[in-house]
C-alpha cells in the first residue's frame, strides 16, 4: 500500500460525482472509511519514507511518522463523524467534492516530505477553504470569501518567497536536507527566510498578529463549514507550523517569541469574545484562544507540554465539531446567530451538550480538557516558564466569564420555544459528548499515543 493513496483516492473519487448523483453520501462515507482502514494498516510499520521519482532531480516524497499518522487518523475520523451527522440529508455535489479535496490536501500537508509539495497542498487547502466559505452564496459569504482570498494571497506570496530563498541558498527542497543545511546559511538570510515562512504559515495557522481576519470568515460561512475549519483545517496548519519550526532547529529566543505570540493570541481572542454579541463570532474567538494555548504549549519544547498539546488538539477538534453542529441546529431554527438565541430555546439535551463542551474547553476536572490543560501546565512549570502558567490561568478566567454567561442565558426565565432535534442527531452529538467525558475519566491510552507523537515531533530533523 502506498502513502500517495491518501491524496489520490479522494481526488479520484470526486470524478464519480456525475455517475452516482443520488448515492454521494454513501460513496463519501465508504471512501473515508477505507482511508481510515488504510491509515490503520500502517500502524507498526513506522516510519515510512516514499519517493516517487520522474527524472532524477524531480521527485515527490511522502514521510509517514507517528506524528503525521496521528493527524491523518484524526482528520479522517472527524470527517467520518461529520459525514455521519448529515447522512440522513441528501449530499450536494459541492460538499462531496470539497470534503474530498479537504481530506486530500490536509493529508498531503502533514505527509509531505518536501517544502514545495507543502506549498502545493497549502494552495489546494486554501482554494477548498475559499469555496467552502462562499457556499451560502449570499452577500456575507462572498464578502468573507474575498477577504479570505486577500489574506490567502498575501500568505502564499510570502511562503513562495521563503521557499525560493531556501532553494537559492540550499539547492534542495527536501525537508531533511533543509533541516541539515539550514544552519550553514548566513544569519541575515536565515532571518529573511524565517520571517517569510512565519508570515506565510502564520496567517493560515491563525496566530497573533496575523489572525484579525479569521473571525469574519467564521461569521461568513455556515456553521457546518466552521466545524470543518475549526476541527480539521486549523489543526493541519498548526502542526505544519511547528513541524517546520522543529525541523529547522530554530533558536530558543524565537520559540520564546512564538510563545509570547500565543499568550497575546489567547488574551486578545478571549477579551474580544467577551464583548461579542454574535454566537458564531464567540465560538470563533474561542477557537482562536485555544490556538493561542496550543502555540504556548507547542513552542515550549517540553515533552510533557507537547503531550498535553496533542491531547488538546484531539479534544478541541471533537468539542468544536460538537459545538458548531449544535449551534447549527439553533441558528437554523431561529434564523439568527445573535447571542439572545441562547435565552430563547428549551432543550435540556442541548444545554447539557453546551455545558460539557464549554466546561471541557475551560478545563474543569471530570472532563477531557482538564487532563490536557494540567499536562500543559505541568510541562510549562517543569521548564520554569511560570509566567506562561500564570498567563494561561488568568486568561482562562476571562474565558470562564463568557462561557458561564452563555450557560446562564440558557437558564434565564424567559419565553422559550422547544427545539426539534431528531433522535439520530441526538445519538451522534451525544456520543461525541460521551467521548469527551470518557477522555477525562480514562485518558491513559490517548496520553500514551500523544507522548509518542510529541517525541516524534521533537525528534524531527534528527533523522
Amino acid at each position, binding site marked *: 500500500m502506498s502513502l500517495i493513496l491518501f491524496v489520490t483516492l479522494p481526488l479520484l473519487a470526486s470524478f464519480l460525482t456525475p455517475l452516482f448523483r443520488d448515492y454521494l453520501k454513501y460513496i463519501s462515507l465508504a471512501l473515508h472509511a477505507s482511508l481510515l482502514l488504510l491509515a490503520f494498516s500502517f500502524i507498526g510499520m513506522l516510519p515510512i519514507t516514499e519517493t516517487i521519482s520522474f527524472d532524477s*532531480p524531480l521527485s515527490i516524497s511522502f514521510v509517514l511518522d507517528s506524528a503525521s499518522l496521528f493527524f491523518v487518523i484524526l482528520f479522517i475520523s472527524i470527517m467520518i463523524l461529520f459525514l455521519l451527522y448529515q447522512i440522513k440529508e441528501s449530499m450536494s455535489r459541492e460538499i462531496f467534492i470539497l470534503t474530498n479535496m479537504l481530506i486530500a490536501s490536509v493529508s498531503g500537508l502533514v505527509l509531505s516530505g518536501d517544502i514545495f509539495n507543502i506549498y502545493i497542498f497549502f494552495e489546494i487547502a486554501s482554494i477548498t477553504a*475559499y469555496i467552502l466559505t462562499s457556499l451560502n452564496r449570499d452577500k456575507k459569504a462572498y464578502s468573507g470569501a474575498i477577504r479570505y482570498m486577500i489574506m490567502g494571497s498575501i500568505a502564499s506570496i510570502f511562503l513562495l518567497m521563503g521557499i525560493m530563498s531556501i*532553494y537559492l541558498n540550499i539547492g534542495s527542497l527536501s525537508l531533511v536536507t533543509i533541516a541539515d543545511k539550514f544552519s550553514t546559511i548566513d544569519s541575515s538570510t536565515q532571518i529573511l527566510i524565517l520571517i517569510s515562512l512565519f508570515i506565510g504559515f502564520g496567517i493560515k495557522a491563525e496566530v497573533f498578529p496575523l489572525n484579525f481576519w479569521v473571525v469574519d470568515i467564521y461569521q461568513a460561512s455556515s456553521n457546518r463549514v466552521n466545524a470543518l475549519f475549526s476541527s480539521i483545517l486549523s489543526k493541519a496548519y498548526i502542526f505544519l507550523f511547528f513541524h517546520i519550526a522543529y525541523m529547522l532547529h530554530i533558536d530558543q529566543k524565537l520559540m520564546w517569541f512564538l510563545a509570547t505570540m500565543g499568550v497575546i493570541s489567547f488574551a486578545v481572542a478571549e477579551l474580544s469574545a467577551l464583548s461579542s454579541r454574535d454566537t458564531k463570532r464567540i465560538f470563533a474567538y474561542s477557537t482562536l484562544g485555544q490556538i493561542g494555548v496550543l502555540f504556548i504549549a507547542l513552542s515550549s519544547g517540553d515533552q510533557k507540554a507537547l503531550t498535553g498539546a496533542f491531547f488538546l488538539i484531539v479534544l478541541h477538534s471533537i468539542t468544536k465539531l460538537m459545538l458548531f453542529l449544535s449551534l447549527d441546529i439553533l441558528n437554523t431554527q431561529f434564523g439568527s446567530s445573535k447571542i439572545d438565541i441562547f435565552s430563547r430555546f428549551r432543550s435540556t439535551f442541548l444545554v447539557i451538550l453546551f455545558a460539557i463542551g464549554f466546561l471541557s474547553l475551560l478545563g474543569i476536572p471530570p472532563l477531557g480538557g482538564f487532563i490536557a490543560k494540567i499536562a500543559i501546565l505541568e510541562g510549562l512549570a517543569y521548564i520554569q516558564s511560570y509566567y506562561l502558567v500564570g498567563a494561561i490561568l488568568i486568561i482562562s478566567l476571562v474565558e470562564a466569564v463568557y462561557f458561564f454567561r452563555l450557560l446562564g442565558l440558557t437558564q434565564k426565565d424567559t419565553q422559550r420555544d422547544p427545539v426539534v432535534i431528531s433522535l439520530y442527531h441526538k445519538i451522534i452529538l451525544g456520543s461525541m459528548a460521551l467521548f469527551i467525558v470518557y477522555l477525562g475519566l480514562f485518558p491513559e491510552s490517548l496520553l500514551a499515543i500523544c507522548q509518542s507523537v510529541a517525541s516524534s515531533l521533537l525528534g524531527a530533523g534528527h533523522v
Partner: protein
Amino acid sequence: MFDSFNQTPFLHTAITIGSFLILAIGLVGALTKKNLFKIFISFAIAETALFIYFIGMHFEVGKVAPILTDKVTQFSTNMVDPVPQAMILTTIVIAIAVLALSLSFIINYFKLTNNMEVDKMDELGEDR
C-alpha cells in the same frame, strides 16, 4: 560593445533589480488600491515578479532550457537546473486558478451588492 551585457552576473543583477521593482509595484498596488479587481491584479503582478526572479537567478549564459524529447532523454550539464522550471510552471497554474476564482467571487459579490470597493464591504462584523 554589448558583450559585457551578455554575461551571467550582469543579467542576474538586472533580473534582481527588475523583479524587485515589479514586486514593489504589486505590493504597493495591493495595499493602496481600493478596487477589488485592482487588488487581485496587483497580487498577480507581485507573484509574477517572484517567478521572474526565481527563473532568472537559475539562468546562465550558454545553457539551454531543460526540455526532454525523444532524442534527449536525460538532463545534462549544459541545461539549466530543471527544478525551478518545474516549480514555477506548477505555481503559474495554481496562480491562474486562484486568480480566476477570486475574479468570479468579485463578479458574484458585485451582482449582489453593486459594490466593488474594499472599504465599503461592511456585511461582516458586530451588530449585524
